[in-house]
C-alpha cells in the first residue's frame, strides 16, 4: 500500500477530512428540513445547523465550579477522535493514505475513545442527569459495538482485509453481486447507526426532557464552544455512519484515482446517496415514536443477530462459491 503515501494523496486526505467537518452540519440540517416538511412545517433553513454552531462558538463557555480539567478537555478529545475516525472512511475517493494507516478496528476504537470521554465528562460535574446519560450511553455502546464489529467482519471476510479501502475496492472489482451476507450486515449496520447517532426510536435528539435523554443528558452542563464541539462531533458521527453505509455497502460512484473528474463525480454521488439516506432517516423518525429505554437492548440484539446471520451466511453460502 506504499503507493498511497504520496504528497497529493496526503493533500487529498486532508481535504477529505476537512470536507467531513464542513458537510456534517449540512446533513443534520437536511434531515431536520425533510422531517419538518413531513410534519407539514416549513422548518428552519438547511443551513441553520451552521448558524447554531457559529452562535455557540461565539458565546462564552461557562463551566460548573465542580468541573475538573477533564470536563474542559473532553470536548476537544471527543471532537478530535470522532473527526479522526471519520477521516478513515473514504468519502470521495478510495486509496488515500489515511485508509492505509487505519483500518476498521481503529475506526471502532476511535469511536469508543470518544464515547469514553463523553461519558466521563457527563459524570464529571456530578449532576444526576450526566451520570444517568452516561450509564445509558454505555449500555447502548456495549451492545452496539459488538454488532457493528460483527457487521464489518462480514464485509472484511469477503474482502480478506479489514481495510475499508480494500473492502470497497474488492466490492467494486467484483461488480454487483447480491450477497445475502451483505444484506444482513447492512440491516445490522443501519440499526447500529441509528442507536449510535442517538436518533429515534432509540434516542430523541430534539427532546427537552432531561429524564428521557441519553446523548443530550451528558451535554447538559456544556455551553459555548465546548457545546459547539460536542454537537459538531455528534454531527460528524452521523455523517460518518451515513458515509459508511453509503460508500461501503453501495460503493458505486466513489472516485478511484485523483483526477478532478473522479473527485467531482465522487462528491456528487456521495451527496446524492447521503441525501437519500438522510431523507430515509427523516421518514423513519416521523412514523415512529421513541421506544422505551428498555426496548433498546432488544433493538440492538436484533442488530447483533442480523450481523451474525450475515457472518454465518457468508461462511455457509459464499465461502468457496
Amino acid at each position, binding site marked *: 500500500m506504499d503507493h498511497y503515501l504520496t504528497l497529493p494523496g496526503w493533500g487529498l486526505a486532508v481535504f477529505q477530512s476537512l470536507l467531513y467537518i464542513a458537510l456534517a452540519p449540512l446533513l443534520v440540517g437536511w434531515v431536520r428540513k425533510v422531517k419538518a416538511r413531513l*410534519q*407539514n412545517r416549513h422548518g428552519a433553513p438547511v443551513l441553520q445547523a451552521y448558524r447554531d454552531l457559529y452562535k455557540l462558538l461565539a458565546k462564552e463557555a461557562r463551566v460548573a465550579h465542580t468541573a475538573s480539567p477533564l470536563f474542559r478537555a473532553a470536548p476537544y478529545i471527543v471532537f478530535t477522535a470522532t473527526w479522526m475516525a471519520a477521516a478513515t472512511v473514504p468519502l470521495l475517493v478510495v486509496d488515500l493514505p489515511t485508509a492505509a494507516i487505519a483500518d476498521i478496528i481503529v475506526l471502532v476504537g476511535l469511536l469508543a475513545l470518544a464515547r469514553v470521554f463523553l461519558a466521563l465528562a457527563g459524570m464529571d460535574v456530578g449532576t*444526576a442527569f450526566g451520570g444517568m446519560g452516561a450509564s445509558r450511553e454505555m449500555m447502548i455502546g456495549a451492545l452496539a459495538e459488538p454488532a457493528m464489529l460483527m457487521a464489518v467482519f462480514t464485509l472484511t471476510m469477503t474482502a480478506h482485509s479489514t481495510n475499508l479501502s480494500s473492502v470497497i475496492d474488492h466490492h467494486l472489482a467484483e461488480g454487483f453481486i447480491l450477497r445475502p451476507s451483505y444484506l444482513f450486515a447492512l440491516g445490522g449496520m443501519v440499526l447500529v447507526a441509528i442507536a449510535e447517532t442517538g436518533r429515534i426510536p432509540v434516542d430523541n435528539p430534539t427532546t427537552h426532557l432531561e*429524564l*428521557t435523554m441519553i446523548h443530550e443528558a451528558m451535554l447538559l452542563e456544556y455551553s459555548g464552544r465546548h457545546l459547539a464541539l460536542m454537537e459538531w462531533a455528534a454531527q460528524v458521527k452521523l455523517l460518518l455512519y451515513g458515509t459508511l453505509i453509503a460508500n461501503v455497502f453501495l460503493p458505486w460512484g466513489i472516485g478511484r484515482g485523483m483526477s478532478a473528474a473522479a473527485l467531482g463525480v465522487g462528491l456528487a454521488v456521495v451527496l446524492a446517496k447521503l441525501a437519500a439516506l438522510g431523507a430515509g432517516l427523516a421518514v423513519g*423518525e416521523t*412514523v*415512529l*415514536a421513541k421506544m422505551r*429505554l428498555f426496548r433498546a437492548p432488544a433493538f440492538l440484539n436484533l442488530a447483533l443477530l442480523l450481523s451474525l446471520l450475515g457472518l454465518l451466511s457468508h461462511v455457509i453460502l459464499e465461502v468457496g462459491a
Partner: protein
Amino acid sequence: MSRLDWLPDFLARLAAEHLLAHSGDEAVLAPAQRLVLDPEDWGNAAKVAARMGLRHVGMWADPSEGAGIVTRVATGADSTPDPQGIAVYACLEYQGGYVVLETAVPLDQPVLPSQTPHFPGLARLERHCHDLTGVTFQGHPDPRRWTRHQAWEEGEFPLRTDFPTAGRSVRHVGADADYPFPKVQGSGVYEIPVGPVHAGIIEPGHFRFQAMGEDVLRLEERLGYVHKGIEKIAVGRDPAALARLAARVCGDSTVAHTWAACQAMERATGGAVPPRADWLRALMAERERVANHLGDIGAICNDVGFGFAHMQCARLRELWQRRSRALFGHRLMMDAICPGGVAWDLTAEAPALLLADHTALRRAAIPLFDVIDDHPSLNDRLISTGRLSTAQVRALGCTGPVGKASGLPFDVRRDCPYPPYDRLEVVVPQEREGDVAARVRVRMSEIQESLVMMDRLLMTLPAGETTAPLPPAPPGAVGLGLVDGWRGEIMTFVRFGADGRITRFFPRDPSWFTWPALEQLILGNIVPDFPVCNKSVNGSYSGEDL
C-alpha cells in the same frame, strides 16, 4: 333535592358515632348542604364520611374577621364568641350532592383533628391550610411545611388579619434548601433531583426521584415555587376585581376559574345571570377544554418522540386560539367572564363562523385521533404506562381526565349541573385501564363531545342581555362555586365582608388531587417514562401554588 337523598343516612351515621351535626341555614352554601360540627368531632366526621364512600372536594380555613362567629353561634357553643376565631370548612360530595362541614377554632389555640387519615388526598390541603392560617391538624401523617418556602417565617400566617397584604419584606428570597426529603437506603439506590429549573420552558416544580437503575422506587413532588399570594391579595377586592384575579389563578383554566368565582359571588349575593350569558360562558368553557386537550394530546405524543402528532395538534390548537382572539377578545378568553354575565357579546355572524370551525376541526382531528389511537409505536409507549387504579383515584378524589380514565366518571356538568348544562345532554367518557393511553382516549372523546355540545349551544343561543348587575352583597355572605374545568371539578369559596368587599377567596384547583396521583402512578415505571406520565396528568403548578 334528589341528589341529597343520602343525607339522612349520613346524619344517622354521624349520630350513631355520637357526633352532633347542627344543620345550619341550608341555603347559605347552595347547592351544598351546610353542616356545623364541634371541633372535636372534625376527624370522626371524616371517618364516617369516608366509610360511607363520600368523596372529599377540599378543605379550607377562613381566618377573616367575623368568620368564626357565625359558625360558633350556629353551634350554640359560645355565648361570648371569640371575634378572631378561624372557621374551617370541608366539602364532600356523593352522587352529585354536596355537603359542607363547618367548624370553628379559637385563634389562640387553633387545633383540629386531621381528616387526612381518612381522605389521603387532603394531605397537602391541610398542610397548605396550616402554612397560611396556622390551624394545626392533629394526627396529620406529614406535618412538614408545604406552601411556605422561605418567603415568610415559621409562625407567621399570611392569611390572618394581622399580616400585611404587601407581605413583611421585599428582600430576595433564598433557595429552599433544607426541605427534609425522606431518604431511601440500600445499595444501588440513587437520587435524581429534577427542577425547579427545567431544560424546557415549563412551570417550576421540584421532583425528587429515588431510583434503582432505571426503576422508580419513590417520587416526591415539591411545589409552591409559583406562590403568588392569590388568597391574600383577594382580600378587600370588589367582585369585578376578584373575577380578574380568579382569571389569573391558572392561565390555562382561566375561563373555568373565573366562572367558578363569579358563580360563587352570584350565589352569595343572589344575583341572576341572563340566559345568554350562561350559554356564552359554557361555550367558552368548552372552547377552553378543546384547546387544552388538543395541546395535551400533542404534548403526550411529543414526550414519546412522535413529533408528527404534536405538530398537528399544535396547528389545530393555534387556529382555535386565533379564533378565540378574534371573536372572544383574547386567545385564552381571559377576563371574558365578569360577575353577573359576560363582558362582551358574540357578533351576529360569529355563530356561523364557529359552526364552520367545529366542522373543520372534526374533519381534521378525527383522522388524526385515528392515527394516535392505532399507531403501534405509540401504543407500545402509552398502553400500560403510568397505571392508576380506580381505588387509587377514589382515595385521592381525582376528577377530570385522570378520574375518568380510571373508572370514576364524575363530572359536575352532568352530576350536579349548573346552567346551561341542566338543559344539555352531557356525555361523560369513561375508561377503565387508567394508563396514559386511557387518559389520551378520554381527552379525544371529550373534544368530540364538547364539539357536539358547542353546536347545540350555538343553535339554541338565547337572545337578550349578556350581563345583569350584581346586587350588593349582604355582610358576611358566603358562596360556593362548582364548575367543571378541563382538568376536573373546580370548587371556589368566597366570603364578603361588611363593606361588600371580599374577605376570603379560596379556589381549589383539581390539581390538588391529581399531583399526588402522579406520585403513585409512576411507581413501577422507569425514569424515562416520567415525562409522559406527568404530561398525561398535567397538573397545574400555578393552580395549586396559589
